[in-house]
């Protein structure tokens, strides 16, 4: 009997290598779990048949292009779109023998923090299905926690891997910008978008990162990793310096239960041998949100110009061409992409460019410098990932700005292109709390080391109580 709720990718690989289970049995076990629980959780938008082989199964967020498998980005405007080529990350999964279980739900074009902006209905949190799994990558996060995949790929622009991992109680990495290829990914904001792993353990997360990372000649913003990925083994944190940015830990809106769990986690890091010190990110926290909500929509308005009903995707009926473009886009896009296209188009338009987009780019420099200065003193920064635990479905849908605040703690380091790891650090009100570890550029190995030692020390049970 394969317990998909508890089986890690590392253990599954051991069982496969030892021929204690077959590839077909393993794939079938996940399909059985999907049959049992996906009606309730709605993690998947599309399921794939077992392509055969003895590699591990994996779930892939539906913004990641997959040859011959529908890729919708959670949008009606891409309904029925079947890519004719694989994204580089999917090529790398296949080269490692990994088998795609299916495509996971996402807020439309990865724009959102709850999956409620998906054109195909929201996903649900495995800890409490009346609550959101976070977003945009809520489908991947809920699938890993719900035992519907051993691990998954997500994508992160301002928190779409880290925040759902926090709300679902698993491990998610937003890699250093440029370490994972964006070729074949549905683009949202190109200077921010990064694909990354979602897993049950830090070691699984590190292993999956090692599979997808590295230079790709088809994405000229990618770089080779300066050091190879190291699977973490150490259980102490001696010699590491961890900074606690005051503003990220005391931001308005952080729930008391979240603050308590994170303070206990910081005490644990110190107990494990880390040197912990307070520090400040005042400008990044205060100006990160407005900076992000100018730059990301500006880039989105440009990237989403390609959906015009001509080459692929949805086309509305119209007798005349301009009418066809405008109607296709009105009927094909949901509310959130429209809002961001409008904000972005406005911010880039003549007369407003310098005051909005130009100024936001300068703020981005300020944020980057503020982070860079801290990494002269610290090896990693620690804070809550999300100010709150998973919130009820519908709680933030009426107010776009309230939804935007879900990412207030993840956005600053994204603007600086830095890696961030979410590790579960406990429960509040019976729901997972996520610890965010942010590192310097290419600091993933340090984040894995800290995350692994912490994970071993606290022994968080990743299986939702209601499913144990």
């Amino acid at each position, binding site marked *: 009997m394969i317990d998909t709720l508890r089986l890690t990718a590392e253990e599954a690989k051991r069982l496969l290598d030892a021929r204690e289970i077959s590839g077909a049995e393993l794939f079938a076990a996940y399909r059985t779990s999907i049959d049992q629980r996906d009606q309730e959780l709605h993690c998947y938008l599309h399921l794939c048949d077992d392509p055969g082989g003895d590699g591990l199964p994996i779930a892939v967020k539906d913004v990641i292009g997959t040859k011959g498998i529908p890729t919708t980005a959670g949008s009606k405007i891409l309904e029925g779109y079947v890519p004719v080529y694989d994204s580089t990350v999917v090529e790398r999964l296949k080269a490692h023998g990994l088998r795609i279980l299916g495509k996971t739900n996402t807020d439309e074009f990865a724009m959102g923090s709850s999956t409620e902006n998906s054109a195909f209905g929201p996903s649900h949190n495995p800890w409490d299905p009346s609550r959101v799994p976070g977003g945009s990558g809520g489908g991947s996060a809920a699938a890993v926690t719900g035992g519907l995949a051993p691990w998954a790929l997500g994508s992160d622009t301002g928190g779409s891997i880290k925040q759902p991992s926090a709300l679902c109680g698993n491990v998610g990495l937003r890699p250093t910008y440029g370490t994972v290829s964006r070729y074949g990914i549905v683009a949202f904001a190109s200077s921010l978008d990064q694909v990354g792993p979602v897993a049950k353990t830090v070691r699984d997360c590190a292993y999956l990162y090692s599979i997808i990372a590295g230079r790709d000649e088809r994405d000229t*913003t990618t770089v080779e990793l300066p050091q190879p990925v190291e699977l973490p083994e150490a259980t102490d944190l001696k010699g590491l310096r961890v900074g606690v940015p005051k503003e990220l830990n005391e931001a308005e809106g952080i729930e008391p239960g979240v603050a308590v769990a994170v303070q206990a986690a910081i005490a644990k890091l110190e107990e494990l041998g880390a040197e912990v010190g307070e520090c400040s990110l005042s400008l990044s926290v205060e100006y990160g949100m407005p900076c992000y909500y100018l730059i990301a929509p500006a880039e989105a308005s440009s990237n989403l110009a390609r959906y015009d009903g001509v080459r*692929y995707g949805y086309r509305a009926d119209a007798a*005349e061409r301009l009418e066809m473009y405008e*109607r296709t886009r009105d009927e094909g896009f949901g509310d959130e992409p*429209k809002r961001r296209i*409008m904000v972005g188009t406005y911010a880039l338009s003549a007369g407003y460019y310098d005051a909005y987009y130009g100024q*936001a780019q300068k*703020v981005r420099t300020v944020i980057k410098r503020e982070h860079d200065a801290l990494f002269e003193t610290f090896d990693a920064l620690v804070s809550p990932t999300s100010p709150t635990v998973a919130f009820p479905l519908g709680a933030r849908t009426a107010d776009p700005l309230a939804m935007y605040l879900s990412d207030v703690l993840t956005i600053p380091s994204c603007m600086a292109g830095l890696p961030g790891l979410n590790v579960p650090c406990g429960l509040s009100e019976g729901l997972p709390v996520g610890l965010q570890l942010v590192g310097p550029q290419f600091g993933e190995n340090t984040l894995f080391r800290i995350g692994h030692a912490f994970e071993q020390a606290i022994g968080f049970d990743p299986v939702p109580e209601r499913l144990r």
Partner: protein
Amino acid sequence: MANIDREQLLHVAHLARLELREDEIERLEGQLNDILEAVSKVSELDLADVPPTSHPHEVVNVWDEDEPRPCLSTDEALANAPEREGDFFKVPPGGAT
């Protein structure tokens, strides 16, 4: 700084090639003004001497050899076309773009 009226909103919608319905226009007007007011916060900082960051890395142009390589066939490129005529994407006629 921020305040977008109905006329500006329709102008921006046209630039973005969005044909908004009446109910959307009403809803968006309030939401966009709230969002623009929130993001206008960036103007509080005096950053005259700060260079802009368009990218997290110092990126420079990457040049490739100009050599033919395998690419999609015409049929593959047209596989997802809403409408096709021969080797072309077919679109409705006329109108300014």
